[in-house]
C-alpha cells in the first residue's frame, strides 16, 4: 500500500493525459487578475516531468530530485518554482526511501508547505497554493489506505477552495485589487485541486465535484 516512485510516475502520466482542459481552465482563472499563464506553465511542467521515467532502482527521493532538476529548466513562473522547491525539499527528505507509507504523506506535505512558505515569504491565509497544501496536510493525516488518502485529498482541495473563494487574495499584483479577487478561485489553489483530481484517477474522483 506504500507509494513508490513508479506510483508517482503513473500519477504524473494520468495528469499529463488530461492536461488540456486543465490548462485552459487555469489560464482563464489566472486571466482575471494575473497574467493568464498558470495553465500554460503547469502544462509545460507536467510535460517535462512526464518525460522523466524513474530509474527502477531509484529511491523516491532520487526520483523527486530528478523531477525537480528537469522542472528547474522548464519553467520560470511562480507556481512552477514553488512546485520545484517542494520537489527538491521532499526529495531530500525521502532520498533513502524506496517508498512512502500512506501515513507519511501528511508529513511530506508539511515539508513541501514549509519550503514553499520559506521560498515565497507567504504564510497561510493569503489565498495561495500554500493554503491548499496546509489543508491537504491536515486532512490526510491519519489516512489508512491509498483509497482513503485519495478521498481525503480530494475533499481537502475542495474544502480549501470553498473556504478561500470569498476571501481576498493577498499575494502579487492582485493585492491592490483584493476586492475583485473575492468570489473567484486562486489559480494556484485551483491548480492543486485539479492536479489532485487527475492524480487520483477517475474512480476516486467520481465521488467528488470540483466542476
Amino acid at each position, binding site marked *: 500500500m506504500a507509494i513508490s516512485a513508479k506510483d508517482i510516475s503513473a500519477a504524473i502520466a494520468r495528469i499529463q493525459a488530461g492536461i488540456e482542459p486543465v490548462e485552459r481552465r487555469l489560464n482563464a482563472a489566472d*486571466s482575471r*487578475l*494575473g*497574467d*493568464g*499563464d498558470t495553465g500554460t*506553465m503547469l502544462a509545460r511542467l507536467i510535460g517535462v516531468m512526464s518525460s522523466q521515467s524513474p530509474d527502477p532502482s531509484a529511491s523516491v527521493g532520487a526520483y523527486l530530485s530528478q523531477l525537480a532538476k528537469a522542472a*528547474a*529548466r*522548464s*519553467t*520560470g*513562473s*511562480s*507556481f*512552477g*518554482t*514553488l512546485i*520545484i*522547491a517542494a520537489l527538491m525539499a521532499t526529495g531530500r527528505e525521502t532520498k533513502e526511501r524506496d517508498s512512502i507509507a500512506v501515513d507519511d504523506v501528511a508529513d511530506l506535505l508539511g515539508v513541501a508547505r514549509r519550503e514553499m512558505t520559506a*521560498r*515565497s515569504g507567504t504564510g497561510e491565509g493569503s489565498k495561495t497554493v500554500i493554503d491548499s497544501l496546509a489543508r491537504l496536510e491536515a486532512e490526510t493525516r491519519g489516512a489508512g489506505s491509498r483509497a482513503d488518502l485519495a478521498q481525503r485529498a480530494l475533499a481537502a482541495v475542495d474544502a480549501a477552495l470553498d473556504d478561500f473563494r470569498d476571501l481576498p487574495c493577498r*499575494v*502579487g*499584483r492582485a*493585492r*491592490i*485589487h483584493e476586492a*475583485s479577487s473575492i468570489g473567484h478561485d486562486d489559480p494556484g489553489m485551483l491548480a492543486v485541486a485539479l492536479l489532485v483530481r487527475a492524480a487520483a484517477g477517475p474512480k476516486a474522483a467520481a465521488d467528488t465535484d470540483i466542476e
Partner: protein
Amino acid sequence: MTKIINAPGTYVDESLEGLCLAHPSLKLVGDECRVVVRSRPKSAGKVGIASGGGFGHLPLFCGYVGPGLLDACAVGNVFEGPTVGTSLDSILNADTGAGVLCLIGNYGGDRMNFEMAASMAEDDGIRSELVLGTDDVASATEEEKDKRRGVAGLLFAYKCAGAAAEEGRDLAEVARIARKAVDRTRTIGFALAPCLMPGRDAPAFEVAPGTVEFGMGIHGEPGLWRKPFSSAEALAEEMVDKLLAEKVSETSSRVALLVNSLGASPYEELFILHRSVRAHLADHGIEIARVMVGPFVTSMEMAGASVSLCFLDEELETMLAAPAQCPFWAVS
C-alpha cells in the same frame, strides 16, 4: 497586431539569435542558450552583475549587457521569468571571483528562481547578493513598498551598480549602491492599447480604444483606474503628482528622468509627454540632471508610456554619469 514571426515556439530563441547577430558585443551561453553575456571578457576580479527576467520587454533585460552595465542576463519565455537553471547559468557566467550581484525586478517567480539559483551557486563557492527593483508605484501602496514590481526604473539601478562594479568596488558596496538606486527610484506607467502574446488569438487583457489604463503593469496587470484619454498635459500632471506624492528619505530635488515607451507609442508622442512632464516637475521645484526618452523597457507592441524618476544624491549622480556601453544605451 500581426507579428513578424515564424512560430510562437521559436519566438524567443530566434529573436535572441537575431539580437546577438546584430550586436556582436553580445553572445548566448548556458545550457539552453538563454543567457546573454558580453563577448569580450570583463576584467577579472570585478564584481559580476547578473540580471534576468521574462522576454518581450526589449531592450530590457538582456539588451543592457555591456561595460558599465550587466555582465550576464538570464532570459525567460515571453512574460515568464527565467528558469532556475537559466538563472544559475547567468550567475556562473557573471562571476570572475569577486561575487555576483543579482539585480532583478521584484516578481515572485523571478525572485524565487534567482534565490534558488543563488543557493545552488553558493554550493559552487560563488557568493552573491540579491537586489530587487521595486519602482512601480502602482503595484502596491507606500506602506507595502517592498512588494512593488520592478519596471523601467530598474535601468537606474543597472547603471549605478554597473558603474560601481566597474570602479572595482566590492560586492557589498555594489549591492549597497544598487539598493540605494532602487530606494530612490519610482515609476508610473499607463497603457493605451494591449499587446498580444505570440501564438495567442487575442490579447490577454483589454484596453478599450480611447481609454487610459493608469498604472497598468508591463504584463498587462490591471491598473489603478481607467478613464478616457484627455491630454498629454493632464496625464503628465497626474503622473508627476503620483511620483512626488511620496518623499524620499533624504530630501532630493534633483532627479534623473526616464520617459519610456511601452512599445507602439512613437517617439513623437514621447517627446510631447516629456515636454509636459518637465514642465510639471519644474512647477514642483524639481531639477532634471539627466534625461532619457525612448523605448527602453517595453511590452512588445503595447501602446503607452511610463515615467521614472531617480532622486539623486551625489553618489548616484556620479554613477549615472560614468561611462557605459550597450547596444541600446551609451553614456560617455
